[in-house]
């Protein structure tokens, strides 16, 4: 099965690029005939990606969550899947290219550097870890989508303020919808990250008896969690709205990305498994 895994590993960025291209072309042209083609493309991409993840899990005898490049491919899948659900539920189809490009980047990095890891550390063979990682990844997918909608909100806001009535004005949903999408994605992300943190805290002492609460990953995650928590709190209790909340969401996303890079490539952390 390894040759199939290698083939799919090369194929996945290509089909993500294809899906992104269809979404992008539709965004530029706005022709009705692409409406259903887009959905077919995204469905086929997700299906192929799911097959890849299942084969990989079966062949290497562990879910692909043991190093950063395995996590990137799961993250690409989870972001696209979350967007797909969002598109089905809300029927808002104009924002796809802005989200799928992020999945494309994650998948491309994963495909370039992922290795056939057969032996994994003993500490990673734990069911709690699986639940912890799945929740964390879905949580970060929520934050990614929230940040994208936040970015689109700010772009449309500025366009409306400065009388620019171009593609952004014509294709995107209205400001209220973008704000809601950004906020609810952040709320879902926050809940899932909270679950991931709770499980992590339960599991951590048994897996790493010598861990420190000053670990960069824990600090980074803590800051992200607090930022989103503060944002949700202020929305409900201090009536914060619009740009302030959106900027908070985008900052949270950037810190999450920075924290991941720092933990896995630069700083020494117990959380770095690669």
């Amino acid at each position, binding site marked *: 099965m390894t040759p199939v895994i290698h083939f799919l590993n090369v194929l996945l960025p290509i089909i993500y690029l294809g899906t992104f291209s269809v979404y992008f072309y539709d965004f530029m042209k706005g022709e009705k005939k692409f409406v259903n083609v887009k959905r077919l493309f995204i469905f086929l991409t997700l299906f192929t990606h799911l097959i890849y993840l299942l084969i990989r899990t079966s062949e290497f005898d562990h879910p692909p969550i043991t190093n950063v490049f395995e996590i990137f491919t799961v993250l690409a899948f989870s972001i696209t899947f979350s967007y797909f659900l969002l598109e089905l539920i809300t029927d808002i189809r104009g924002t796809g290219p802005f989200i799928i490009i992020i999945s494309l980047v994650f998948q491309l990095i994963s495909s370039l550097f992922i290795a056939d890891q057969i032996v994994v550390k003993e500490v990673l063979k734990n069911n709690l870890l699986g639940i912890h990682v799945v929740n964390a990844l879905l949580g970060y997918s929520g934050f990614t989508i929230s940040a994208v909608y936040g970015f689109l909100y700010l772009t449309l806001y500025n366009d409306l303020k400065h009388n620019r*009535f171009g593609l952004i*004005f014509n294709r995107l*949903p*209205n*400001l209220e*919808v973008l704000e809601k999408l950004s906020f609810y994605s952040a709320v879902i992300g926050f809940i899932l990250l909270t679950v991931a943190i709770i499980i992590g805290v339960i599991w951590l002492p048994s897996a790493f008896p010598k861990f420190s609460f000053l670990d960069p990953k824990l600090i980074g995650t803590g800051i992200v969690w607090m930022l989103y928590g503060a944002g949700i709190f202020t929305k409900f209790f201090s009536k914060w*709205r*619009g*740009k302030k909340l959106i900027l908070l969401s985008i900052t949270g996303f950037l810190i999450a990305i920075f924290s991941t890079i720092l933990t896995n490539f630069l700083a020494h952390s117990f959380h770095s498994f690669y």
Partner: protein
Amino acid sequence: MNLLAVSINHKTAPVKLRESLYLSENEVRELIKKIKNKYFTEGLLISTCNRTEIYGIPVNKDITHLHLQKIITESKNSTTTSADSFQTFISRDSLNHLFSVIAGIDSMLIGDNQIFKQVKDSFQIAEEMQFAGFLMRRVFDSALKVGKRAISETAIAEGAVSVSYAAVQLIGKIFSNLNKKSALVIGAGETGEIAAKHLNDKGISHLVITNRTTEKAAKLAEKFNSYVVPFDKFKDHLHKYDIVISATSSESILIKKQDVEAAMKKRGYASMVLMDIAVPRDIDPASKEINYVFYHDIDSLNIIVGQNVAKRRKEIPKVKIIIEEELNSFFEWYNSLQSAPTIKNLRDHFDAIRAEEVEKNINKFSSEDREKLEIVTKRIINKILHHPIVELKKTNETGTGAEEAATKMGIIRSLFGIDTPESKENKT
């Protein structure tokens, strides 16, 4: 097909002349009474503020476009028209023009969505006045199909092409729906009324109108089941409105930046849309500097209108393809009304029924009788069809009007279900 048409419209005549020739519904009905059977066996009369048009199948060959022009000018005693004021069409060109009109590509406002209803109403009047016969009914069906296809298959009617509607379109990019929003319309003139109508149509929850003359505001408010605020008090309530549309003839600024700032503070900086569609402007343009205030004046709205008009123009070739397809479809049907194909189809139709029944019952006859059965049934069919076929051939030979002949063919086809969708389904 000898379908004559004349049109006086925005391309051929100035507004003054077009207005002078406008016919009300009653005048249209009166005119149809006068021209029916005298000039035309069947036809259609369309009159809107931008065009007056007559289509008709003439009673004889002597009726020309000049008669049609005369009918229009005499109906309103107009002395200022000349031959140049009219466009004239015949046969396929007449249909092409009608299809272009109903699809909105001949309108002053490309893709105008009112023209479809206006033409449809004209069809209705022609039907009621029994001015629509066998041919014109088919023309109406094809024209309605063109209009519907143009709307559903192209973007010819999409996007706002008036300033008031562009304002509402822009509001739709800020708020997701208006049924929880409140709006203030300042000015109860024509523009204010159109803006109030658009907001009302979009389901605005709370609509308030203010005007220097309170009676005028009250009259407009009554029309839209909305409320009135006195003109000298509206600034005190500014914070209550998510949308403010101003369209007065005031020479000076009515709402200053400070007024907007105070209102925004009171409403906790919840988004507020200010649409200034007055010239000169009513609202201080510096208001746009305030966070969450979306200020737009007539210039910015005109950008949207211009973009939408350009988009609609790009759709014209697509509409023309639809028109061409429907013209071809119409004339395919019309040409099938010629006698030779009709006679052949009629024979084939009856023979198919005969053959089917013979086949069903063939086992009830001995092998010797089967040949006789064929001969007898064919003879019956020939006798039944003899007279209708002779009549059909005679129509052609005696040179009866082509339209009358076509009508007869059409009736025969319709009565026996030849080449109707149902008959085609049955065959398959």
